C-alpha cells in the first residue's frame, strides 16, 4: 500500500507525516495555482517575449517561403521531403509520448504520476497542435489544404494521416480537459462572484457544476479510464499511419514492415524525454521541488531508457534487414558511412548511449543528469527522423549522384519557431489552469495509505467547503476508487 520509495528524498520527508495533512492539501492547492495567482515575474516576461519573437520570426520566414516557393527552404527534386516532415513527425511524436505516458501511468494506477499528468497532457495537446500546423509549411499550396476534404482520395496514406491526426487531436483535447474539470470548479469558487466574463466562461462553464460528489467523481473516473484506453490505440494509429506515408512507397529505406512500430516507439521515446523537459522546466520555474522530486525523474528516466533500447533494437533490425542482401546497400552505406553518417552516429551516441549511461550510473541519475539526457534524446530523435527521411528521398532511383538537402535560414527559422511555441503556449496556458490536478494529487495516495488519502480527501472537502460554502461528502476509506488507485503501486 505504501507508495513511497524506501529512500525518501530530502525535500519531501514531511509528506508522510499525517499531522501535516492540512498543510499538504493547502500546499497542493497553493502550488498548483502558483502559475495562475502570482503576477508573472520578470523572468516570465523576458522568456515569453523572446519566445514570441522567435515565433514571429518563424511566421515571417513562412510568408517569405510562401512568396518564393519551397526552394527557399532548401528543397529540390531529389530532396522533396526534408525538414518539415521531420518536424511534423517529431512534434506529433512527442505529443504521443506525453499522452500515452500519462494514459499508461493512469491505467496501471501508478500513483507517483499525479504531479506529472497535467504537465504531460498539456504538452501533448500543445505539441500535437504545433505538429499539425507544420503540415502547412510542408505543403507547396497550403491555401488548398481543404482539397483533402473536398476531393478526398481514400486510398492515399496522406488522407489517412489527415483523419488520424484530426481524431487524435480531438482525443488529446478531451484527455486534457477531463481531469481539468474539478480544478476549474475549485478556481471558479475561489474567484467568487467578482468574475470577469472570460473567467466566468472558462471556469464556471467548463467546470460543469462540479461539486465533487461521489457520483460525479465516479463518472469522471470512468470517463478518464475510457479516454485513457482510447488514446493509446489512437496514438498508435497516428504514428503507424504517419510511417505509412513512407512505408507505402517503393523506395528502399522506406518500404519496410518494421516502420509502424519503429515510428510508434520513436514517438514514445522522444515523448517521455519531452515530458522530462517540460516537468523540469515548470518544476524549476514554479519551485515545485516539493512535489516533483528526483524520484519522478529517475522513474521517467528508467521508462525513457527502456523505450530507447527498444528503439535501438528496431534501428538495428531495420539496418540489418536492408543491408544484408545487397539490394539496398546504397542507402545503408550512405547512412552509416556516407554523408548522413555524422547525423546517424550523433543519434547513436547522444540519443542512445548517453541516456543509458546517465541512467545507469548513480552519480548522474538525478534531475540534472536526466534532464540533460532528455535534451539530447529529443534533439537526436529529430536528427534521426531526418536520417530516416533524407537518405531514402535523395537516393538515385535510376542512376547518377545522390541528391542533397541544405538548410536555409527559412527552414531553420520556421523549425525554431515550432520549438519555441512549445514553452510559449505552455507558459500562457498555465496562466489560466493549475499546474497539476489537485484532485488527483490528493487521490493518488501520495500521502501513503488509504486512510491517509481519505483523511486528505476530507481536508480538501473542508477547503472546498470553505471556498464554496457547500457540503461535500468525502469518500470513505474503503472506497474502491481510492483503494485501486493506491493498490497499483
Amino acid at each position: 500500500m505504501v507508495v513511497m520509495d524506501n529512500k525518501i528524498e530530502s525535500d519531501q520527508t514531511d509528506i508522510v507525516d499525517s499531522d501535516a495533512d492540512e498543510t499538504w492539501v493547502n500546499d497542493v492547492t497553493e502550488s498548483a495555482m502558483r502559475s495562475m495567482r502570482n503576477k508573472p515575474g520578470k523572468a516570465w516576461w523576458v522568456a515569453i517575449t523572446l519566445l514570441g519573437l522567435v515565433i514571429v520570426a518563424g511566421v515571417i520566414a513562412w510568408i517569405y517561403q510562401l512568396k518564393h516557393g519551397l526552394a527557399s527552404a532548401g528543397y529540390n527534386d531529389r530532396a522533396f521531403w526534408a525538414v518539415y516532415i521531420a518536424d511534423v513527425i517529431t512534434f506529433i511524436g512527442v505529443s504521443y509520448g506525453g499522452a500515452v505516458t500519462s494514459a499508461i501511468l493512469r491505467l496501471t494506477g501508478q500513483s507517483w504520476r499525479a504531479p506529472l499528468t497535467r504537465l504531460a497532457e498539456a504538452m501533448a495537446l500543445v505539441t500535437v497542435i504545433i505538429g499539425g500546423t507544420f503540415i502547412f509549411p510542408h505543403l507547396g499550396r497550403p491555401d488548398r489544404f481543404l482539397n483533402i476534404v473536398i476531393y478526398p482520395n481514400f486510398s492515399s496514406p496522406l488522407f489517412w494521416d489527415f483523419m488520424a491526426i484530426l481524431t487524435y487531436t480531438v482525443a488529446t483535447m478531451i484527455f486534457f480537459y477531463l481531469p481539468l474539470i474539478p480544478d476549474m470548479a475549485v478556481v471558479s469558487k475561489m474567484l467568487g462572484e467578482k468574475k470577469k466574463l472570460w473567467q466566468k466562461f472558462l471556469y464556471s462553464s467548463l467546470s460543469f457544476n462540479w461539486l465533487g460528489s461521489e457520483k460525479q467523481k465516479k463518472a469522471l473516473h470512468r470517463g478518464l479510464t475510457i479516454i485513457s484506453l482510447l488514446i493509446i490505440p489512437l496514438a498508435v494509429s497516428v504514428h503507424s499511419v504517419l510511417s505509412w506515408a513512407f512505408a507505402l512507397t517503393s523506395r528502399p529505406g522506406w518500404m519496410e514492415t518494421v516502420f509502424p512500430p519503429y515510428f510508434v516507439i520513436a514517438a514514445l521515446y522522444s515523448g517521455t524525454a519531452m515530458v522530462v523537459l517540460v516537468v523540469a522546466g515548470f518544476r524549476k520555474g514554479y519551485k515545485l521541488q516539493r512535489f516533483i522530486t528526483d524520484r519522478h525523474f529517475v522513474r521517467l528516466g528508467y521508462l525513457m531508457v527502456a523505450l530507447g533500447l527498444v528503439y535501438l533494437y528496431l534501428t538495428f533490425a531495420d539496418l540489418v534487414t536492408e543491408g544484408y542482401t545487397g539490394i539496398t546497400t546504397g542507402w545503408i552505406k550512405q547512412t552509416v558511412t556516407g554523408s548522413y553518417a555524422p547525423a546517424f552516429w550523433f543519434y547513436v551516441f547522444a540519443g542512445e548511449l548517453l541516456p543509458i549511461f546517465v541512467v545507469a550510473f548513480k552519480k548522474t541519475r538525478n534531475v540534472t543528469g536526466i534532464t540533460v539526457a532528455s535534451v539530447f534524446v529529443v534533439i537526436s530523435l529529430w536528427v534521426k527522423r531526418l536520417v530516416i527521411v533524407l537518405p531514402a528521398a535523395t537516393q538515385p532511383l535510376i542512376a547518377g549522384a545522390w541528391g542533397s538537402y541544405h538548410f536555409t535560414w527559412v527552414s531553420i527559422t520556421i523549425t525554431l519557431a515550432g520549438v519555441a511555441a512549445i514553452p510559449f503556449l505552455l507558459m500562457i496556458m498555465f496562466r489560466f489552469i493549475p499546474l497539476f490536478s489537485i484532485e488527483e494529487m490528493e487521490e493518488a495516495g501520495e500521502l501513503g495509505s488509504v486512510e491517509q488519502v481519505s483523511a486528505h480527501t476530507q481536508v480538501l472537502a473542508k477547503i472546498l467547503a470553505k471556498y464554496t460554502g457547500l457540503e461535500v461528502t468525502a469518500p470513505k476509506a474503503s472506497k474502491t476508487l481510492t483503494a485501486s488507485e493506491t493498490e497499483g503501486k
Partner: protein
Amino acid sequence: MPESKVNRRNFLKIVGAATAAGTVDMVTYKAYASTNSAPNGWKGTSGVAGSSAASMANTASPPDHQWAMVIDLRSCNGCKSCTAACQKAHYLTEDQTWIDVFTMTDTIGRTYSMPRPCMQCENPPCLHVCPVHATFRTDQGVVLVNQGRCIGCRMCMAACPYQARYFNWNAGVEYPSMPIKPTPEMPVPQRLGTVGKCTFCVGNLNDGLLSECAAGCPMGSIYNGDMKTDVGVNSMGNTIKLSEFLYDNDAVTFKTSQNTHPRVWYILGHGQNLDNDDQAS
C-alpha cells in the same frame, strides 16, 4: 529539324488512315495477341478510364487511341535534344527534366544513355497516393496532373519509382502570356508549389503531331505509338507496326518488378539490364 514537320504530318495521316482501317488492324492485333505472349501482359485496347477525374480533365475525345512510346536505346546517342525540346515547349527550369537522359552502366561496365519520360503506368503508384485526386489517368491511358488542384504534398514524388515527377520549387522561368489557361494536358505556365511531369504531349498526339521529345530527337530513337491502331512513328519518318516492332526487338519495360505496367517500352541491344532495381552507388 526541317523534316520533322513532314513527319508530324505523316503521323497525322498514318494515324488517321489506321483509324479508318481500324477494324482490320484490330483483328490482326487480336489474332497476334492471342497466339503470341505479348510483352509484359500488354492488354492493348483495355484503356482504363480515369473515372470521375477524366471527365473533369476536359479530355472529351473518346478513347480512339491508347498512347504509348518506344525508345530505341540502340540509336540514342545521349545528346539530350529531347530534354531541351521538352523544356522549351513547357517553359521548364533546367532542373525540371520531364524527359531526363540518364547515363547508365551496362553489365560489362560500359556506359549508354537512357532517356526517361514519365512511364504513363497503367497502374500508377503516384495516382494511388495523391490525397486530392490531382493526379488522374485519362481514358487514353495518359497520367496527368491537375495543377489547379494539387496541394503540393509531394507524396507522388515519393511513390514514383522512376523519379519522373518534378516540383515547382520556385517561380520558374519567364514565359510569354498564354492564349489559354493552363490545362492538365498543357500545364503552361507551371504553377508555383505544385507538381509537374511529362504529359506525353497528349495534346500534340491528339492533333496528329509527335510529342516534343520525339520530334526533337535527331536520331529517331523515340517513337510515339498508339496501341489501339498499333502504329508508331519517329522523327525520321519511320513508321512501325507497334506490336510487331516490340516483339521482334525484344522490347522491355523499366522496373517490371514494380508492377506499374509502363506504356513506355525500351529496345535494348547492348547487354543492358533495365529491370535492375539495384541502387548501385
